Structure formats: C-alpha cells, structure tokens
C-alpha cells in the first residue's frame, strides 16, 4: 500500500526483571494507512498501551523493543538514535494520553506549552507560533481561544483540557497520532464530543490514528479497522464492521458478546470465564486456550499465527485450512 503511514512487523517488547525477561508484546504486526483510524482493544495488560509507547519510542526502562521493525512512511524508526527519535516525536507522531488532568504541565500557560511544541519542531517565530496556537485551539473547539490561550491548565475543565492535549498533539501536523485511551477519564457526554473531534481532525488532516481503548463503543463509533489484543498478541485484526458484527476469534467473540445491548432483556451480562494470564505464566500454545470455549488439542501445544480470514486476519487454529479439511 502506497499510503501506508505506519507499518509494524513482528514487534516484540520485553521487560527485564529480577525474575527474568517478561515478554509484554510478542510478534505484533499491523499497518495504518493515511487518514485511517485503527482501534486497538483488549483487557488491561493485553499490551495495547505498550504497543503505542513502542511506536513513539517511549517505553520506560527496564522495557525495550526486543525484536521486529517499526517503519513510518517507509523509514525505519525503531532503531533511531535518541536525538533523532526525539525529532520524530511530536513532529511526525503525536500522542494523546489517557488523563487530560495530568497531561499538561500545571505551571505553564496552555499557550506557552503549545508554542513551545510548535517552536521545537518548526522555524516559526514566537508571534507566528502564537497565532498558530490560537488557530489550533479554535480548531479543537475551545471557545474564545485568543483569551483562553493565556489560561493555566487548572482553569480548564477535563473535556477542555483533552481538547488542549489534542491541539498539542496536532501542533506540528504529525502523520500519525497515538491516542492512548483518550476518553477513558472523561464523562460519557464529553467522550462522544472528543471522539467526534478526533475523527473530524483526522479526516481533515489525513492523519493516521492508532486509537488504544478498552471501550468497544468508542471503537465502533470511531475506528475504520480494529485489532483485538490478548496477552501481548493480536488475536484478530480487520475492518471494524466485520470484527464487531462477526468476530471470528473466540476471544473477540467473547468480548463482543459481553457488550450489553439496548434490545436484549436485562439479565446477567455475558462474560469470559477466567482472567488473562500474567506475563510470568503465559500458557503454552495459544495463550487464550485455558479460557476458550472451543479449545482443542492443538491449541495447547502450538501457537496460532495470524491467517487471513475474509478481510481480517485471525490467530486461531479453528480457521486453519488444515483443520477445516481434516
């Protein structure tokens, strides 16, 4: 694909601990095209956020990228020296964090923080950068931006702060934005506004987005494609309509089945029995097999690799042609 912005191949992230090396991400591959929103879902600890941190080169030690490649517009970025990677951050990849209340430096005016970001990455003068900052604030829907630009973060509400954070992420017109649970800390009415805003901005600017969340509603609303992660691997990745309406991987199916709907009679919510394995005790074979309703012998010994199923790719032995033939 010529308009592929981000391409991740066989990415592995490991954490060195006293009890040995823990593999948080194991062989993850995906692409994001220009203007596309890829949703990444999964339970806490599935490796969603670590994947995002790996792409932008901000994995905290003792974590490190243990294998695989990350390419941005054909240029490999996972092995860049720190100073060159810093220039990629903010300039070519923007990031939005979960909690807008703590994402902004409380001691600086929001305008100063935006201007600082713009001037770090461009040659704009102080005055031009300020004009651009006002334009950005207007674009993300902050009323009276020429006055609010001199406000401090504590003078903004949570939703408004997340708008400021988005403005900051967009400050240098990046090609890719990593949004790590951008709506989790907001209340529901504000969530919808932020998602709509994010969608509109990406359409207007042609920015690719990696939208990390555990909220299927957000995915269904915003994403073009979705990757379901489980225990550091992608279980299923495909167009959002297919994955949500017709999930193939038993884990994805379980996730979708657990979403309450308005039409069903209110009863006990469906759930997947058990919980995700700890990184120290990932089972052999398919990591999901102890909880899988359709488990069979092969699942316990051989790890499934993603295979194309329709427009999606699914890592499950159920969809292996051999199995179906047998």
């Amino acid at each position, binding site marked *: 694909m010529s308009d592929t912005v981000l391409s991740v191949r066989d990415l592995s992230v490991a954490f060195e601990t006293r009890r040995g090396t823990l593999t948080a991400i194991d062989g993850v591959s995906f692409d994001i095209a220009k203007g596309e929103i890829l949703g990444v879902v999964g339970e806490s600890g599935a490796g969603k956020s670590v994947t995002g941190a790996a792409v932008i080169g901000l994995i905290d030690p003792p974590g490190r990228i243990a294998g695989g490649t990350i390419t941005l517009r054909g240029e490999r970025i996972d092995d860049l020296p720190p100073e060159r990677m*810093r220039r990629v951050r903010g*300039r070519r990849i923007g990031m939005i964090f979960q909690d807008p209340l*703590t*994402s902004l*430096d409380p*001691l600086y005016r929001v305008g100063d923080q935006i201007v*600082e*970001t713009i001037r770090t990455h461009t040659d704009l003068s102080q005055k031009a950068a300020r004009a651009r900052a006002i334009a950005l604030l207007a674009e993300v829907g902050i009323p009276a931006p020429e006055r609010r630009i001199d406000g401090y973060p504590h*003078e903004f509400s949570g939703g408004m702060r997340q708008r400021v954070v988005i403005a900051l992420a967009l400050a240098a017109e990046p090609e890719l934005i990593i949004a790590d649970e951008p709506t989790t800390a907001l209340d529901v009415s504000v969530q919808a506004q932020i998602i709509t805003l994010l969608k509109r901005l990406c359409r207007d600017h042609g920015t690719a987005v990696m939208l990390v969340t555990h909220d299927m509603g957000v995915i269904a609303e915003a994403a073009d494609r979705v990757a379901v992660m489980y225990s550091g691997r992608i279980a299923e990745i495909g167009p959002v309509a297919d994955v949500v309406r017709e999930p193939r991987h038993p884990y994805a199916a379980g996730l979708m089945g657990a979403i309450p709907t308005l039409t069903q009679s209110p009863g006990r919510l469906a759930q997947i029995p058990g919980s995700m394995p700890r990184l120290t005790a990932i089972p052999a074979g398919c990591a999901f097999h102890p909880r899988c309703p359709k488990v069979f012998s092969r699942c316990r010994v051989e790890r499934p690799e993603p295979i194309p199923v329709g427009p999606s790719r699914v890592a499950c032995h159920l969809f292996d042609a051999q199995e179906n033939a047998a």
Partner: protein
Amino acid sequence: MLAFILRRALQSVAVLAVVGLIAFSMFRFAGDPVNQIVGADTPVAERAEVRRSLGLDDPTLVQFARYAGNVLRGNFGISYQFRQPVASLLAERMPATLELAFCATVFALSVGILMGVYCALRRETWLAKLFQAVSLVGVSLPTFLIGILLIFLFSVTLGWLPSYGRGDTVRLGWWTTGFLTGSGLKALILPAITLGLFQMTLIMRLVRAEMLEVLRTDYIRFARARGLTTRAVHFGHALKNTLVPVITIAGLQLGSVIAFSIITETVFQWPGMGLLFVQAVQNVDIPIMAAYLLLVAAIFVTINLVVDVLYTVVDPRLRLSVGKAA
C-alpha cells in the same frame, strides 16, 4: 494579593507577640541577673536597690508590658553586662551573622540543587550514588563536629584557611563587611560550609526525591511525547515543578541557618549575633537574650511570608483571585 500579604503580616504580628511573651517569661528562670551585676560582697540593701532600679520587682506582666512598649519604640533595653543599648550591640554584630548566613545559604541552595538534580537525572551513575551516601553523613553529623573537622583539616593540617574570626573587615556606614578583603573572604569559607552543609545535604536529598517523583508524572511523559528536547523537559518542566515543594522546606531551613548560626559562630569565634547570644546566656543578660529571640522569630516569620508569596509566583494554581482576573 495585597490583602493576602496584609493578612499574613497581621498573623505574623500575633506570632511575634506570643514569642515575646514566652521568651520573656522563660528568662525569669534563667538566673538572677542582679548576681551578675553586683559584686559578691554587695550588701543586701544595695542589691534591692539595683533590683528596683531595673524594675525587676514588678509583677511579670507589668514587666512584659513595659518591655513590649519599649520594643515597639525600638528600645530593646540596656545590656546588663555591656551597659550599652541592646539594639546597637545587635546592630554591630548583625552584619557578621547575615554575611555568614548569606554565604551558607548560597552554598546550600546552589550546591544542593545542582547535586539533587544530578542525582535524579543520573540516578544510576556511581557519582550519584556517592553523593547519596555522602549526603547521609552530612545530614547526620552534628554541626560543631563538622566545624571542628574542617578546622582540623584546612586550618591545622593544611594551614590554608583561618580557623577563627572574620579577618579584615571594611566599614560601609554602619555595616561592616568581610566581602571586600582577601582575608575576610577566606575567613568566610569554613564557617559558611559548616553552617550550610546540613541544609545543603537536606536540599539535595529533597530535590532528588521530588524530581524523581516529578519525572514519573504524566505531563513529563507528555512533554517527551511532544518531542521537546531533553533539556527543556528536564530543566523547563521537571525542575520547575520540583522546586515548588522545595521552596517551602528550603525557606524554613534558611531561617534556621540564621537562628542556629549560634553553634557555628561559637566554634569559629565568629563575632556575630549568635556568639553574642551565647555570651549573654552565660551572663544571664536577659535583654540581649530576649531581643535575640524576638529577632530570630521576626526572621522566621518574614521568611515564611516571602515563601508564601514566592509560592504563588511559581505555582499559578495558588493565585486564586489574581488567576481569575487574568
């Protein structure tokens, strides 16, 4: 802002009044000043006469009221031992103490913050670990011991620096300064280090701990994700946030630098207010002791006020009324 300062100033006056009362009543148990003034063979009648002339016969409250009234008019009484006004005695000694405290403060703040920042940013280096270990010594060794060790090393063994006194001083109006002569500057080094060492190690440990805390916050992660230079992240954002809580502690500590210069001044025979106080205690010179305590209280209260004001300058969240007006 002005109302805030006025309110704090009023509170300060109350604090000073209480300190004055406590100091005054405490000294009634310090010994009989008449014994110090008269000879051993003075007849009882003459003693009673001295007692009456000094007003020591009156009830405590009357004495305190009279004292407070005099203090408000700038009259701190006459020293029993020197037969001179206390105010001029203190004024004569004050430059020595203030210059010493100033040097100790500059030393403690500059070296303490530098080392603290270094230890936080280069946590794993052996030098940072060495600083940490040495700082423990600085925190735990008593001041007089540090002074004596420094004298032993630099004055007795190496003979580089003087072990007592202020060296040559220059008189500028009523102020005598040691800053303008070589021997004056040399004489400042050892006492300033002795007096500042404890504060320095304390500030270093505080800055290190605070900065490590700040470096873990979301807004620092976000600042990195914005692609800011390491310098901007560390010194623009992390250090400024670190200094907010450090200001309070450092401010209070610096008050105690002046107050507790007593020990250092005694060790180095430094002709300042602390040494005057120690001599006053030995001679039950109540006017000097009371005036000194009041002075120290006034210094503490003033520093507290300055710290509160500085706080609002550094941290916009505390600028309640001003922030809204902006």
